[in-house]
């Protein structure tokens, strides 16, 4: 040891100080660049299944060019990404390779809107020219043919293939014959490309990405497909911006063009508009139950829902005259069945019971339907042709028998198109009793008294359908989705409606 103590101190300390300087310099270099480059808003974070990277990357680029909004793409296996999104509670959108993951995420309440995008099919990939002459599943199972599979528990393609082969009764044999299981579809495709295996189950779109591969359609996989949907994450900090990109991605003239180019089979997407508009025809009695849901929907979607509320008979007449709404929410099944051929995806949403309604403290002492036939009463009913309520009222009165229908008709002071109008007229004092839906009375409960009708037929069921000819089917479907949501349910129930949407 030499004794230059001062010098020694400098060596130790100088080395440390130098390392601090180096570290600071590295931080500076790292922090410098983004400031010059990235400006503008926070990017939208999209968890994207690795297998659909090609079209999504192209769409993201287009979107960025068109609107200057950056899309940050996180790639991984569908299942892995879901776990990541769940854990981090970050991110705005989730785009897995198959619907089953959407269902899973839904169950965990991780998702809001779900927008369908495209389909892809499982095929058997072999090297170009098919050197092993594989044509059928039996060929695959021949000795000497090495098979790779994407793990059915990790990757969508493995899952879909397993389901189809199990149905065909061939899964056990294939499972036993498989040389190797890998976590993603691309890894098994790479294996075929490198020649480490002879065949592998992949997506038809995967084969298109690999010029060295060729796809073989197997009889056992006929008609099998994975459905790709993009979903807005419930924890997203920017759901509106996210949903907008989801709309762009699924627009038939924007994102779906790229999907088609990459060999996907796109769904029937809406056309792209900055601010989409749709037309909803709805029974007037449903207005208080759905209005707030629609306002929120408009805000989230950046869309406009033009709604026409009226008696359902009038609405049906309008449609028969040629009006084609994007969605129709009917007061009763009977008014949906008349125009059912114009609509698809028709589902029951709510139910509504009919009541006799009289002024407060019931001055005329009306207790049953029979009382409505008493001489000298002024009764208000809904119009039999114009509204579902009127048609149902007629049915109920006829069913009650004993000439009640005729007696009540004699007391008929006014026929209105909607139940709300009748309630107003009753409150104005011009009527003694009316028959309306329980929901019609919600707004003015304290001024009225309600008498139940003890008949099973005294209720209506409200179904909603999406227009077959609509140019905004996806938008309309999402509106229906919003109306079926738990949040919407609360509004229906608080108004006295029953709820007919089966729990998921």
């Amino acid at each position, binding site marked *: 040891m030499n004794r230059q103590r001062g010098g020694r101190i400098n060596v130790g300390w100088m080395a440390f100080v130098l390392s601090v300087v180096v*570290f600071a310099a590295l931080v500076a270099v790292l922090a410098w660049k983004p400031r010059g480059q990235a400006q503008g808003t926070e990017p939208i974070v999209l968890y994207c299944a690795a297998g659909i990277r090609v079209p999504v990357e192209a769409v993201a680029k287009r979107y960025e060019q068109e609107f200057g909004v950056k899309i940050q793409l996180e790639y991984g296996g569908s299942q892995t990404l879901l776990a990541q999104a769940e854990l981090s509670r970050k991110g705005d959108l989730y785009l897995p390779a198959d619907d089953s993951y959407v269902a899973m995420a839904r169950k965990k309440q991780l998702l809001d809107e779900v927008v369908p995008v495209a389909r892809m099919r499982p095929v058997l990939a072999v090297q170009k020219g098919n050197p092993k002459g594989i044509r059928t599943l039996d060929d695959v199972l021949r000795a000497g043919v090495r098979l790779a599979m994407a793990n059915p528990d990790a990757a969508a393609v493995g899952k879909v293939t397993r389901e189809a082969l199990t149905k065909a009764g061939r899964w056990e044999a294939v499972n036993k014959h498989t040389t190797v299981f890998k976590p993603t579809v691309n890894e098994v495709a*790479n294996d075929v490309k490198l020649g480490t295996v002879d065949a592998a189950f992949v997506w038809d779109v995967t084969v298109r990405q690999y010029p060295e591969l060729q796809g073989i359609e197997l009889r056992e996989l006929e008609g099998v497909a994975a459905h790709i949907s993009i979903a807005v994450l419930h924890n997203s900090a920017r759901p509106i911006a996210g949903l907008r990109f989801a709309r762009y991605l699924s627009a038939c003239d924007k994102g779906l063009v790229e999907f088609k180019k990459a060999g996907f089979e796109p769904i029937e997407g809406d056309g792209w508009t900055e601010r989409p508009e749709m037309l909803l025809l709805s029974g007037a009695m449903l207005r208080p139950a759905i209005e707030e849901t629609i306002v929120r929907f408009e805000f989230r979607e950046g869309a406009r829902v033009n709604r026409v509320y009226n008696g359902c008979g009038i609405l049906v007449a309008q449609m028969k005259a040629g009006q084609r709404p994007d969605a129709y929410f009917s007061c009763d099944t009977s008014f949906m069945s008349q125009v059912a051929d114009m609509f698809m995806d028709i589902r029951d949403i709510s139910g509504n019971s009919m009541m006799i309604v009289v002024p407060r403290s019931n001055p005329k002492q009306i207790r049953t339907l029979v009382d409505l036939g008493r001489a000298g009463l002024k009764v208000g009913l809904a119009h039999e042709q114009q509204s579902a309520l009127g048609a149902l009222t007629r049915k109920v009165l006829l069913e009650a028998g004993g000439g009640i229908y005729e007696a009540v008709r004699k007391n008929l002071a006014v026929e209105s198109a909607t139940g709300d109008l009748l309630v107003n007229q009753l409150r104005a004092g011009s009527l003694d009793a009316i028959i309306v839906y329980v929901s019609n009375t919600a707004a003015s409960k304290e001024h009225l008294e309600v008498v139940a009708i003890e008949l099973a037929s005294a209720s209506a069921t409200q179904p909603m359908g999406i227009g077959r000819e609509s140019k905004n089917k996806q938008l309309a479907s999402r509106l229906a989705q919003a109306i079926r949501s738990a949040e919407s349910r609360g509004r229906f129930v608080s108004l006295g409606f029953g709820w007919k949407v089966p729990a998921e």
Partner: protein
Amino acid sequence: MGEPNIPRAMQKPRQVGSDAPFVVGLGIIGSAYVLLIVAMIVADAAFTTPGHLLAALDSPQIRYAIKLSLISSSMTAVLSVWFAVPLGYLMSRSRFFGQGLTIESSAGSGMTTAWWLKGVFLRTLKHLLDAILDIPIVLPPLVMGLSLLILFRTPVGQAIEGVFPVTYAVPSVILAQFSVACAFAVRTMRVTFDQINPRSEQVALTLGCTRSQAFWMVALPEARRGILTAGTLAWARALGEFGPIVVFSGATRMRTEVLPTTVWLELSVGSIEAAVAVSLLMVMAAVLVLIVVRAAGADAGMPGVVQ
């Protein structure tokens, strides 16, 4: 060295002809491994073309990944050394400090039981610390990433995220690399200080140095080659790190994309050629940096220091 009374076996073997088969044998066994590595690189090189390499270099994404990889690995290396030196030193000299403590406490009366208990306590503590430091080496990298992700969901993690974003941002890359690489640096520093004879420090103490002075003036300079090794090991480890990064930082192009991420992304679309090209770029960068650093370190090499 080399005095006549030293046994023959301890003399340099090259001086004696009959040692040749032994050396050749070692050489053959050793070169088999070297050959394996070289053969892999050659196979990689044969799989790609200069065109692929140029195309890779031409891509702004890959250029960004190269930049981020080099910078983040270097930061990880510096960070790892900062933490590994004190940890390694403490662990290596724990007996020493333990003695100090015991001497002070037992100065009044000769409490041998207390002395013994203290020894047991210190040893247990050391074993526990050893085990904890093994965790990052033992854990699958993916789990490291997952654990970091979970950590930043806790209130403390959220508080940090409130100040500056970590998850899915650049700091997460460095943190992911650091959490694994530092463990290797600590191991290296521990061995380094273990092999440095504490005598010179003790001499410095008797000459009037404080423990801090002895550390800065004696122990640290003596450990400089060890520090360099620890730093380069951490750097290399960080450069190749992928598992924790893909979970904790995501695989975002132009943002958290490092070279291993690029390789994975390229593989995920089946362009094995591009993946191999990027891998080769990575190997070239790593070899270049390691050679330069080691050469620079060797120039300033000191006698009596661990290899």
